[in-house]
């Protein structure tokens, strides 16, 4: 089959690789129909997440059709049209039972690496470095899905492939970001980063009761999408002082909840960016916490900070004093997709949110290296490139 393989920092190639086989009793093989770029792939390609190896198949946000199942697969069957969560959950450990799927104890074959780095291991993820399992990713014609009964969700009639695709990652991550804010109704929510996840966080925050959503980015087309599709108020950080603007927009209180949809490669127009970029380049810190610092400063006293942008290691100048004295609540994590998938498919079926507008570019899998270049530099208003396989 054809697959998009990592060859080195910012170097991808589409190669011929063997088809995947069933390796464990709870496995299924999915023929990929659509698979899409995710901002977190850029951290891998840029070399900021260690343990990537030459030849790794990348990609984790996908939908397709089940073509084969292992002997212990019960719920899904051959021919089912499914969307698949990127995080692999066994369904049996304490964390899965408590709906904390991305913390699954049993799906990372390389659990020893995160145990040394982070104290404990977390769940395996498709195409997301060997530290997080080393599973072959979804930018391929076929993918092996371990614990298929937990990770594959049948797509109901009336929901298109392109709508269902984003129930894999962008939608549940954005939804969880808003869910973690524990909104009671009437809150002002500020969201940093208007990529696919940020766009979904905007829609989800309104759905869960926010009365105002303020979205922050620097790319005009992304801000336009946040404004027109998400009905958010928008701020361009290259044009305004974000902390001042947020204060003024909220009567001096600051937003009740602040969501970081950016993560470790944050950008800023001032000298702070170069300070962190320099430290990151020489590995004095692994992650640039520019957004994280702003989020903590901006948040109202006693408010909630919700982090779904990806961090990997260590940050510097973390304003713990502001966080502690303002009594902020921190919620964060990789998305627990299995907790949200059915709920989100229903939201789509009922017509409340249609995430397919994230798919700004549709391209054949063969064009993936070009697509990632465009995606990284945000060319041509690219929000998400969706890859089709088999020339469809």
């Amino acid at each position: 089959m054809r697959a998009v393989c990592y060859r080195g920092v910012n170097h991808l190639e589409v190669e011929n690789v063997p088809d995947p086989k069933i390796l464990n009793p709870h496995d299924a093989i999915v023929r990929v129909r659509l698979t899409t770029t995710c901002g977190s792939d850029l951290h891998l390609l840029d070399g900021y997440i260690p343990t990537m190896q030459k030849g790794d198949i990348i990609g984790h946000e996908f939908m397709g059709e089940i073509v084969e199942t292992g002997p212990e697969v019960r719920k899904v069957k051959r021919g089912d049209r499914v969307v698949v969560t990127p995080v692999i959950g066994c369904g049996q450990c304490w964390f899965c039972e408590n709906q904390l799927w991305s913390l699954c104890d049993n799906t990372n074959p390389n659990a020893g690496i995160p145990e040394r780095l982070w104290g404990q291991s977390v769940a395996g993820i498709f195409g997301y470095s060997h530290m997080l399992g080393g599973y072959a990713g979804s930018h391929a014609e076929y993918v092996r899905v371990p614990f298929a009964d937990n990770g594959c969700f049948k797509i109901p009639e009336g929901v298109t492939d392109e709508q269902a695709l984003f129930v894999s990652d962008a939608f549940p991550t954005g939804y969880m970001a808003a869910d973690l804010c524990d909104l009671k109704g009437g809150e002002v929510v500020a969201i940093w980063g208007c990529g696919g996840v940020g766009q979904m966080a905007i829609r989800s925050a309104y759905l869960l009761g926010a009365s105002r959503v303020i979205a922050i980015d620097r790319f005009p087309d992304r801000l336009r999408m946040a404004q027109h599709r998400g009905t958010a108020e928008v701020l361009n950080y290259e044009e305004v002082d974000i902390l001042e603007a947020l204060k003024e927009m909220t009567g001096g209180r600051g937003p009740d909840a602040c969501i970081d949809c950016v993560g470790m490669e944050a950008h800023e127009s001032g000298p702070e960016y170069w300070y962190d970029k320099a430290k990151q380049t020489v590995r004095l810190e692994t992650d640039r916490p520019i957004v994280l610092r702003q989020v903590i400063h901006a948040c109202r006293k006693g408010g909630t900070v919700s982090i779904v942008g990806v961090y990997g290691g260590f940050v510097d100048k973390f304003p713990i004093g502001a966080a502690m004295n303002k009594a902020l609540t921190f919620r964060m994590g990789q998305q627990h997709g299995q907790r949200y998938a059915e709920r989100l498919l229903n939201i789509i079926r009922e017509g409340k949110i249609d995430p397919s507008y994230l798919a700004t570019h549709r391209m054949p899998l063969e064009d993936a290296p070009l697509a990632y270049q465009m995606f990284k530099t945000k060319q041509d208003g690219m929000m998400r490139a969706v890859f089709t396989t088999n020339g469809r």
Partner: protein
Amino acid sequence: MGTAMRALPAESPVAAWRRPRAMAPAYMHAAGSIASGIGAGALVVWGMRRKGVVGKMAALAGGALAVRAAAAVAPVYRDVILAPVRIQRSVTINKSPEETYRFWHSPENLPRFMRHLVSATVSGDRVHLTARRHDGHPMELDLVVDRDVPGQYISWHTAGGIKSHAGAVAFRPAPGNRGCEVIFEMSYRSAIGEAGRFIGKLRGRDPGTMVSGMLRRFKQVVEAGEIPTTRDQPRGV
């Protein structure tokens, strides 16, 4: 609660293998002996190279000193280098202690999570293990079960052989309905002791890492019914 707080009962063979105390004076004496041993060796070499009676006398005297130094170092080798290495690792499993114990107690299950183990058969209080070594050759090992408390505890020691050790595994309920805490402890004497352990660690083969891996696989098999793998999955060249 007194005994429940302990991972292992005090009378466990593992506890009895603990390192002897108050050896410090002997060690300090030995340090001097090592120094004099080196001097003795030098004397032997000098004497052997020199012709004549003086050389022979010096070599003989050096030899005698070397023997004396070796005799003083021997207990240190026995007590320090050969001191038992003790390893303890724990894991929490989302099942009852009874169920977890039962799985461990069934010999046919052991090869599912103990790497290199081919089979385990039980007769009376003995367990016969067949394993495959790193070089592929088979290895046989007999264990004697010392204590077996259903749902709680199993301890054993090896009946001779080069891979001799004593071990125990305890199963106790985890607080707050979190299943079962499994505590595995083993103790063994190795000809190269701590040094060997350090070398093993550099090669990623130290017993602590291996025990952690075994407990992780045990948990994976008991909870999820399979051990996650990426072996033989597709990848680019």
